[in-house]
């Protein structure tokens, strides 16, 4: 029995030790680092290390670390408490006065020190709260871990692809599909550019949330998500919808509608629209034209025209239809995580205060 107790004690000592923390953190750091390059290294990818962050044993490392952190923090409490009990004086206060102790206390209090007394010992502390910084930070990390756990059990994260003028309620997650009890209708997606520049200024989706005959309008741009019934929607990306995007070409005075990736023949010539994009905030089209005497290809800007053999083509208008890509997340642990963040930030700023402890022994002369 005694031996078992010794073994248990040893295991407990190891579980709460800084050594274990360093080992676990080093392993977590090492595999995280491997994970960032595994995508480009074949044998690492074959081992599945490109998705190491979602593997069971990576989770196990984190769980072990959380246990280690919890035990380590708990094991520190007696030491901290002992610090706030006056013992082992490092100063002597000698006085002839009758009420020497009260006098010293008044003196220390006037210096805004925190005081504890016991028998003839008085301990004075500057910034006693500094000693609780470590608990705040560790607790904050544990709270964040708990929030992440809550989110991973009851939450989800994925993307939604909705073509213009269509609705969807399907979310594609990392390894699954989720169906929402309501649908999102994409009325319009737009890309705006800065004036005369190729730099986009805004990606915006407007539409409706369709929930039981209710039609709730929404607008979302990058960095400005909207929330409905606890589900967050973010403007994440977009694609050109080739089925719905077309340009109007004026060929020898007649208008021709040309859809993407759908070649057409007109006046002994064929036309093919390979791509549609923007240049200096104006639409440009990658056009292939085939004539009996040969073929030509190139980018053409809106409003430009070109003479190819006997035909004259002008790019008169463009109609892009986009598929908006929304990130969708349900994150029930979110507020718990924020609480942890606040705890960590507030407690870590305490580190800058300098704690001081002095224990006075009051002696009468």
């Amino acid at each position, binding site marked *: 029995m005694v031996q078992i107790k010794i073994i248990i004690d040893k295991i407990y000592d190891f579980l709460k030790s800084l050594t274990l923390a360093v080992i676990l*953190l080093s392993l977590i750091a090492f595999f*995280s680092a491997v994970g*960032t390059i595994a995508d480009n290294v074949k044998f690492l990818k074959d081992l599945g290390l490109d998705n190491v962050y979602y593997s069971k044993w990576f989770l196990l490392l984190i769980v072990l670390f959380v246990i280690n952190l919890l035990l380590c923090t708990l094991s520190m409490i007696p030491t901290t408490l002992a610090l706030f009990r006056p013992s082992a004086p490092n100063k002597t206060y000698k006085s002839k006065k009758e009420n020497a102790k009260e006098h010293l206390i008044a003196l220390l209090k006037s210096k805004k020190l925190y005081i504890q007394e016991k028998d003839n010992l008085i301990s004075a502390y500057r910034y006693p709260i500094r000693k609780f910084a470590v608990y705040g930070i560790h607790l904050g990390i544990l709270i964040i871990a708990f929030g992440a756990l809550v989110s991973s059990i009851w939450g989800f994260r994925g993307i939604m692809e909705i073509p213009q003028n269509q609705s969807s309620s399907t979310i594609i997650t990392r390894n699954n599909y989720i169906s929402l009890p309501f649908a999102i209708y994409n009325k319009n997606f737009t890309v705006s550019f800065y004036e005369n520049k190729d*730099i*986009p200024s805004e990606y915006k989706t407007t539409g409706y949330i369709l929930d039981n005959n209710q039609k709730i309008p929404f607008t979302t741009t990058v960095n400005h*998500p909207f929330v409905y019934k606890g589900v967050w929607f973010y403007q994440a990306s977009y694609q050109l919808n080739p089925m719905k995007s077309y340009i109007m070409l004026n060929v020898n005075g007649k208008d021709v509608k040309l859809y993407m990736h759908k070649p057409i023949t007109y006046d002994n010539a064929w036309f093919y629209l390979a791509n549609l994009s923007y240049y200096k905030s104006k639409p440009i089209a990658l056009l292939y034209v085939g004539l009996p005497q040969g073929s030509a290809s190139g980018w053409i800007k809106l409003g430009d025209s070109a003479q190819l053999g006997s035909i004259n083509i002008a790019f008169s208008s463009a109609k892009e239809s986009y598929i908006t890509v929304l990130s969708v997340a349900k*994150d029930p642990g979110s507020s718990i995580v924020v609480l942890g963040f606040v705890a*960590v930030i507030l407690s870590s700023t305490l*580190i800058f205060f300098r704690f001081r402890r002095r224990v006075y022994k009051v002696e009468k002369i």
Partner: protein
Amino acid sequence: MYSNVLSIASFIYIASAFVLILSFIVKKKSFDVAGKGIFVLAFFVEFLYFTLRTIETYQKGYNYLPVTNAFESFVFFTLCLGLLQTIVIKKTPSFVVLSSSIVISATLLALSIAGFSEHIEPLIPALKSNWLVAHVITSFLAYAAFAMNFTASAFVLYTSRNYIDKITGSVAFGALLSLMFTAFIVSITHSKPFVVGIVFWVVISSMLFVLGFILKPYEKKDWIEKPLVFGFVLLTIGIITGSIWAKYAWGGYWSWDPKETWSFITWIVYLINLHFIIKRKSVKILAYLGIIGFVCVIITYLGVNFILPGLHSYGSN
């Protein structure tokens, strides 16, 4: 437009480095004070540049702090280091100031030949957020503090009598100095930076190794510990603010994007270092961890933007 001001600032930084090196040789207090004074002057000139650029950005109607592309972020890194160093300059031993001015000069010189665009461009949608300022300032102040921790760590190893320590210290300082000289030579001769860099690195490191024997071992922990604690707190806040921003931009606090992951690795290295400080481990262990930590900072800051693609890749153009 104001890039002349930046060039002037970098030359003043270099001047401060030279004066401080002289003060090492002649061992006169007046050189020490002069070197520090020149450093502070350089910082104020650089701050003037930053202010002018900020004003210009706002005048163009873009309304953001110029910290958003590769060029601006490098300048901002040196500015943060200059600021931290200026704040503590009275209490700093001159070798720390010297290291800071070498780090800043090397970065600015390398930047001048790297060919990043200096144009002021409007922000892409992903960067339009109020969290940008908090995230970038805290992260870069942390990087600056870690740079100070790195140079102090390298100095401890460099002045050690142990050969392996000395080689590590020489190679670390050699990297900084070779960056500076390479930038200088490449800008004049237009030769291949990589080859010149490696040659300089080897030559300078070996020279430093030999020279290092004249210095007495330096084993104080002060300049390893203080910047580390400060940097660690700021990195923590930087990661948290970034995480909150990510929540609003990408849909989750954490996505294991390469930059996030490497900042996490950096955080772990400094976290271990911090606990080793509390446990009063030997100064050499702290110094080695300081070197490893700063390598992680460089990977987080540069490697991820330029090599590993991810959500943070907009910093690379």
